[in-house]
């Protein structure tokens, strides 16, 4: 039973690390800042949550701290990404030429 849990935890760790790697690859390869933020935030949030779940499988007595870190990341990571994207939009960061729709611009620059 505990060997099975160890194997599950190690597999979750490897999967989360693979998601981190793909997120960082997207961060390096995407054409403009908005695409980079999307790749860098979504994939790395999922990867970190998988890594924390894997650590909780390997060491079940650590679950309260791991749950706290996971919840904190889940709440703050999209928020910081959104704030950074809005700041980039207001400072007029260049868009990729493939992007054709900008609804924030059409609605007048996002309020306030």
């Amino acid at each position, binding site marked *: 039973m505990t060997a099975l849990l*160890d*194997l599950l935890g*190690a*597999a979750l*760790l*490897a999967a*989360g*690390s*693979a998601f*981190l*790697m793909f*997120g*960082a*690859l997207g*961060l*390096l390869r995407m054409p403009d*800042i908005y695409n*980079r*933020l999307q790749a*860098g*935030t979504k994939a*790395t*949030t999922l*990867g*970190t949550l998988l*890594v*924390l779940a894997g*650590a909780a499988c*390997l*060491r079940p*007595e*650590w679950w309260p*701290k*791991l749950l*706290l*870190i996971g919840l*904190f*990341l889940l709440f*703050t*990571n999209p*928020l*910081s*990404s959104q*704030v*950074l994207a*809005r*700041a*980039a939009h*207001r*400072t*007029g*960061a260049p868009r990729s030429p493939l992007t054709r729709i900008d609804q924030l611009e059409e609605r007048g620059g996002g309020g306030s």
Partner: protein
Amino acid sequence: MVEGLLYLTAALGATAFLLALGRFIRGPSAADRVAAFDVLTIISITGIVLAALAEGRGIYLDVALVYALLSFLGVITVAHYLERSV
């Protein structure tokens, strides 16, 4: 099997670290570098969890919690500065 998967995890994490560091070096604007900084902090959290597993000390996870708090505050600060400096 478990040992091999843990080494695979470390190798993938190191690759992710190098890729995000490449974006931090190359990034044309400051906002790109802030995004890369955020990703580097998150990858460091993974590294801290791996170090805690390797050493078997649960106290290391407190540092990971401080890191999560700190990446949020840093990004908010820099975004505020970028918005004001238009």
